[in-house]
C-alpha cells in the first residue's frame, strides 16, 4: 500500500484543494474505515444495551482483549502474507498443531520457555514448508496452504494420540488468562505481548527494506522481480515469519485452554482473514496495515461479546460479521475507483 499510498496521499492533498466534498469523504472513509467500524460497533451496542456501563466497563474490555489475542496475533502474520499477495488457509490447523507441540513439551517436563519456543518454531517450520511448496514447487498459495490445513491438523491429532494433552501448572497458563494475577498489569501478558509485536512488525513493514519489498511484491510481482528482488526467498521468508506468529497464536490458545487440543480452532483462518480484510487489506496484495488488522480483530471480538450481551442467537452475529466483511471490501473498492480516477 505504502508506495502507492504515499503518492496517492500527495495526490489526494492536491485533489483536496480542487475536488468537492463527496470524493474527499470517500477517500477519508477508506483510510479511517476500520476505526469508524470500531466506533460504530461500540456505539450501537452501547445504545442498544440495557446496561451500557457494563458493556464499556474495564472488566468487559479486559475480557474482549483476552478473547482477541489469538486472532490478533494470527492477524499480524496474515497481514504480512496478504500484503505480499498471498493467502494462508492453514492457520487454524497450525494453531492446533503448535498448541499440541507446546503441551507435549510441557508434559515431558521441558522448561516452559523451551516448550513455548518449540511451539513458535513449529509454526515457523510450517510456514517455511508452505513457502517452499509455493515457490519451489510452484503451487498457488491457496492450494499449498489448503493442503497444509489438512496435513497439520492430522499431524496434530497424531502427535496428541487423538486426545487432548493436559499440561502441568506453569507460567504459560497465565499468558492469556483473562484476569492476570498481578493486578497492575491490567491486561493479560499475552495482550501486551501482542500489542508490542504488532508495533514492531508495523515498524518493520513500514520502514525496513524487507518491508518495502513485501509491499512491492504484493503490488506487482513481475515488476518486483524486474527490480532485482529475490522473489522466491522473499516469499518464503514472509510465510516463515508469519508462521512464527501462528505458532505464538497456538501457544496462546494452549494457554487459554490449559491443554493442547488437536481439534481446536477449526475455521479460525477465516476469522483471521476476516480481521485483516476488515482492517483494510486487499486480497489482491500490496495493501494492508497491521494497525488496521488489529482493529479488525477487535471489531469481531466486540461484535461477538455485544451480540451475546443483547441475548441475540449465534446466527445473528454470523450474519452481521458476514455483512461487515463485504462492507469492508466495498469500502476498499471505492477507494480504488477513486485512486484510478486520480491517476
Amino acid at each position, binding site marked *: 500500500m505504502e508506495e502507492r499510498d504515499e503518492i496517492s496521499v500527495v495526490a489526494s492533498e492536491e485533489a483536496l484543494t480542487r475536488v468537492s466534498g463527496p470524493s474527499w469523504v470517500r477517500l477519508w472513509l477508506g483510510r479511517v474505515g476500520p476505526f469508524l467500524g470500531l466506533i460504530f460497533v*461500540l456505539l450501537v451496542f452501547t445504545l442498544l444495551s440495557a446496561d451500557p*456501563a457494563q458493556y464499556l466497563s474495564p472488566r468487559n474490555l479486559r475480557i474482549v482483549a483476552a478473547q482477541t489475542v489469538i486472532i490478533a496475533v494470527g492477524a499480524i502474520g496474515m497481514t504480512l502474507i496478504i500484503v505480499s499477495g498471498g493467502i494462508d488457509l492453514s492457520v487454524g490447523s497450525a494453531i492446533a498443531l503448535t498448541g499440541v507441540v507446546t503441551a507435549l513439551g510441557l508434559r515431558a517436563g521441558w522448561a516452559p520457555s523451551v516448550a513455548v519456543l518449540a511451539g513458535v518454531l513449529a509454526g515457523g517450520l510450517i510456514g517455511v514448508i508452505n513457502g517452499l511448496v509455493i515457490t519451489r514447487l510452484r503451487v498457488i498459495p491457496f492450494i499449498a496452504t489448503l493442503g497444509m490445513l489438512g496435513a497439520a491438523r492430522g499431524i496434530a491429532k497424531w502427535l496428541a494420540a487423538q486426545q487432548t494433552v493436559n499440561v502441568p501448572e506453569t507460567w504459560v497458563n497465565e499468558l492469556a488468562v483473562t484476569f492476570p494475577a498481578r493486578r497492575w498489569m491490567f491486561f493479560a501478558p499475552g495482550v501486551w505481548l501482542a500489542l508490542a509485536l504488532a508495533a514492531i512488525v508495523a515498524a518493520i513493514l513500514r520502514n525496513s527494506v524487507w518491508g518495502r519489498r513485501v509491499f512491492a511484491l504484493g503490488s506487482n510481482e513481475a515488476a518486483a522481480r524486474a527490480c532485482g528482488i529475490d522473489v522466491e526467498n522473499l516469499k518464503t521468508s514472509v510465510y516463515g515469519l508469519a508462521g512464527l506468529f501462528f505458532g505464538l497464536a497456538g501457544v496462546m490458545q494452549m494457554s487459554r485452554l*490449559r491443554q493442547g487440543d488437536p481439534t481446536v480452532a*477449526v475455521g479460525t483462518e477465516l476469522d483471521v482473514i476476516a480481521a485483516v480484510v476488515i482492517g483494510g487489506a486487499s486480497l489482491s496484495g500490496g495493501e494492508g496495515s497491521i494497525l488496521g488488522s488489529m482493529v479488525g480483530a477487535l471489531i469481531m471480538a466486540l461484535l461477538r461479546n455485544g451480540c451475546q450481551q443483547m441475548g441475540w442467537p449465534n446466527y445473528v452475529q454470523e450474519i452481521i460479521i458476514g455483512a461487515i466483511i463485504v462492507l469492508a471490501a466495498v469500502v476498499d473498492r471505492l477507494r480504488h475507483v477513486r485512486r484510478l480516477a486520480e491517476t
Partner: protein
Amino acid sequence: MMGSVSEQMRRRLWSFIGCLVLALVAFGCGRSGRATKSYRVAVIPKGTSHEFWKSIHAGALKAARELSGEGVQVTVDWKGPLREDDREQQIQVVENFISQGVDGIVLAPLDDRALVRPVEEARRAGIPTVIIDSALASEAIVSFVATDNFKGGELAAERLGSLLQGKGKVLLLRYQEGSASTHEREEGFIKRLKERYPAIELISSDQYAGPTRDTAKRAAENLLNRYGEQIQGIFCPNESSTAGMLLALQDIGKAGHVFFVGFDATESLIEALRNKQLHGLVVQNPFNMGYLGVRTMVRYLRGEPVEKRIDTGVMLITLENLSTAEAQALLHPPLDEYLR
C-alpha cells in the same frame, strides 16, 4: 513523503481519540443496574442444534416458570458456542456471561479440563456454577447434575449381550475425543460386555464419530466398509453417532440385519426402533437435567443446601416398552409448551 505519513498517523490518532471520547461519553450516560431482586441464570449447552439440547432448554424454562410462580423471579439466558464442538468458543461464552454479571451459570462443559479456568474465574467473580451433562475436573462447582452415564453404557451392553445370546462380534463407534459423558458410556459398555459376555468379541472400539451426524456417517461408512460383513452387533454412545451409523446402515441395506443399540432418542431414531432397524435406545432425561440444573442453581443462590451429585436417570427403550407411559414421558418432553 515523511510529512504525508505522519499526517496519516495524526489522522489515525485523532480518530482513535474520538473513539475513546465517544466511549467515555456513552459510559457516563450509562444507566445503572437492575432494581428488583431477581435471579438471572445463564444456561450454556455444548451446542444448540441437537434435539437433546432443546429438551434441556425447555426443562430450564420450566424451572424458571415454576419458580416465578412461587414468587422467585428467574430469567434464563440460553447461549451455546458459535461452533458446536469448539472449546475456545464455549470459553468465550462463559467469559462473556461473567462480564455481564449473571447470578449463576449452568454449564454443560465441552471438555472436563479446558472449561476449568473460566469456571474458577466465575467463582472468583462471585458467580457459582452448576455443571450438567458432562463432568468438570474442578472442585469449584456447586453441584453436578447429570445422567449416570456409566450405567447407561452397561444397559446397552446388557441389551446387546442378550440379543446376541452371548456370542458374536460387535463394534463400538465412539463419539469424540475428550467428551467425558460419552467416554463413561463407552467404558461402561466395554466393561459390562467383557464381564458378562466374555464370548462376544469387540472387533473395533478405537474410531470416533466426530461432532455431527455428517462426520459420524462418514466414520460409520468407513468402519462398515471394513467390518460390515463380520459384525452382528453395534453400539453408538450418543444421538449424532447413532443417527450417522443408522444412515450408513440404511445406505448399504444392512439396517435391520445387525443388532444395533444407540443412545438418546429423536423422532427418526424412534421410527427406526419401530422398523426394527434399531433394537434398543438408552435414553437420558435431558428435560429433567435442564430443570434440575436451574432448580439446583436457584436453591444454592437462596442459601438452601444442595447435593454435590444429582442423578437425572437413564432408561432402556425397546419396541416392547415403547408405548408405556414412562417411555412416552421421556421421549416426548413438552418442548412446544416452553420453547414458544
